[in-house]
């Protein structure tokens, strides 16, 4: 499969500033640091990691909703970061986003039809065609176009997410950034939305970057998985393999936080692990493995430099000194 998006050494640091006229920096918060990953055409790439691990920032940089600090993003052979306004406008047709909170992502004072029609109007489509296209995409996501005159809050969360997906699809994009699209929904609705997304992906030949903190969903839904922690990419590989045989100590611990329904005695252990991951000591300054302060298998070298991402067998890569490169 060809690569649709190639990300090389991408970094973004959020700087918190105080004052309005004389701005001075008071803190730096590296959201994404030095990430390189390929997204292949037609695949679903899952991205997992705790909160604040830079998953959403990564996707927003691909959409140019956030500007990267350094590194490069190549989209279908073109350098995304050098796009001017006209090229960016065309990029908006190809890459779209679906948000976590479906109700918040729709304008509450516009009807569903107006919300879905907005991107078409932005690209100068005529009113009659817009109406037809809105009906078409609403049917595509399994909604009744006859209800499109209603307001978003009259629909359930799952229906709102369908509307948001319809809106993202109106411009016929090839890439969708799904920013935790099901984490605000009921479990029973999650499966419906995921099935819909999977169907659309096959039918329209879409490429997804699927961000989630729900490991079970990512395992079932995504072809490949990347694991992020504190802005750094720790591990990638086929979803099944990452879950069956996690390599990085962080991934192993992170998978341990998944609750198992049957084995009740594991709940406490899982909660404890989750707590450890959340409250881990702040990352040490200077270059080092982001997980060094919490890792059970750390070595002195871990605190000296960030281990490079090494490619192992079967397209698996891991950034850990425990695994010397075989290639």
């Amino acid at each position, binding site marked *: 499969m060809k690569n649709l998006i190639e990300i090389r050494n991408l970094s973004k640091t959020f700087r918190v500033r105080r004052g309005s006229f004389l701005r001075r920096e008071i803190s730096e918060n590296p959201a994404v640091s030095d990430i390189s990953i390929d997204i292949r055409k037609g695949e679903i790439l899952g991205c997992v990691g705790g909160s604040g691990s830079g998953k959403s920032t990564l996707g927003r940089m691909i959409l140019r909703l956030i500007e990267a600090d350094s590194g490069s993003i190549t989209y279908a052979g073109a350098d995304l970061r050098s796009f001017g306004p006209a090229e960016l406008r065309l990029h*908006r047709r190809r890459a779209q*986003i679906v*948000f*976590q909170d479906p109700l*918040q992502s729709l304008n509450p*004072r516009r009807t569903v039809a107006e919300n879905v029609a907005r991107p078409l109007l932005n690209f100068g489509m005529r009113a009659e065609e817009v109406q037809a296209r809105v009906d078409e995409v609403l049917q595509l996501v399994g909604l009744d176009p*006859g209800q499109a*005159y209603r307001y978003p809050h009259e629909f359930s969360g799952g229906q709102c997410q369908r509307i948001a997906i319809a*809106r993202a699809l109106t411009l016929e994009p090839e890439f969708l950034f799904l920013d935790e699209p099901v984490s605000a929904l009921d479990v029973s609705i999650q499966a419906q939305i995921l099935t819909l997304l999977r169907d659309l992906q096959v039918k329209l030949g879409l490429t997804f970057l699927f961000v989630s903190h729900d490991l079970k969903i990512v395992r079932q839904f995504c072809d490949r998985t990347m694991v992020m922690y504190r802005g750094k990419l720790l591990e990638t590989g086929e979803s099944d393999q990452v879950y069956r045989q996690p390599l990085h100590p962080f991934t192993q611990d992170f998978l341990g936080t998944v609750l198992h329904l049957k084995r009740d005695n594991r709940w406490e252990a899982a909660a404890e692990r989750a707590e450890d991951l959340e409250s881990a000591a702040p990352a040490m300054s200077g270059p080092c493995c982001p997980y060094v302060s919490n890792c059970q298998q750390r070595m002195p070298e871990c605190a000296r430099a960030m281990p490079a991402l090494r490619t192992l067998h079967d397209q698996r890569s891991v950034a850990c000194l425990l695994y010397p490169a075989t290639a």
Partner: protein
Amino acid sequence: MSDVSLETGRRKQPAEKRRSNLYFVWRGVLGDPVARIAVGIILIFFLAAVFAPWIAPWPPNEADPSMRLRPPGTPGHWLGVDNQGRDILSRLIYGARYTLLCGITPVVLGAVISVPLGMFGAWYPVAGAVIMRSMDVLFAFPMALLAILLAALMGPGIGNMMIALVVTLIPYNTRVVYAAACLERDQAYVEAARAMATPGYKIILSEMMPNVIASSVVYSCTIVGAVVITAAGLSFLGLGVQPPTAEWGIMTSEGRNFIFNAPHIAAVPGLAITILVMAFNLLGDSLRDSLDPRTRLMLIKRRK
């Protein structure tokens, strides 16, 4: 979803067409008994102002010295007579013209300037810093004092008074709009609008504006009262409407010398101001609910 339900959905569409915002405001306000009373009061004042020459029993400035200081209930002068022998009811009816004009015009003009200013400021942070800091400078003066200062600089007259009131109102309304716009700016739908290549001015005008304007409408309704009172204060100081013109503020201040012998001279126009202010406040509350798509359907359904 089956084809059948899609078909029926299509057929239903013309009958259940989307209602306009005005329809919901109409239904929402008329469905609320409190708002109905408020609208009724404002309407009565408006009609009185428009048809003053036909309604008022006496000309507003015709004085009958023999009737001076008569209390309310005097035959022919149902609300009493003031210190110069002028009929208070007639002056109240004529005064509604100036009071409504001085109360509403500055608020409307202030909102017209404040809404774009606040939204522009929220969208462009640097411009926002400049705008909001200049507003802070205006804020440093008490509302009445600033109005007096401006009116005194420009000279007396109703036009200058209204300009002074507009300037004093802008900081308050701008801050309300700015705060609301900042909240909306961080909503996901604004980011979604950016992701679908909506130009910045369109995001401000057609995405954020409908969400922001409601808070300004509500605020404007509540501030009408303060403006009527400030306008009355300016007139009292000789900077606004000039005596002997009938205006509620002037009438109140003229009555102050007789507050112990004939309290009705100040109390009647004072009461009229109170009722007007209250009516606008209640209308503001009702407008907020009926402007919001999230609450207005409930309002209408509950009252069906």
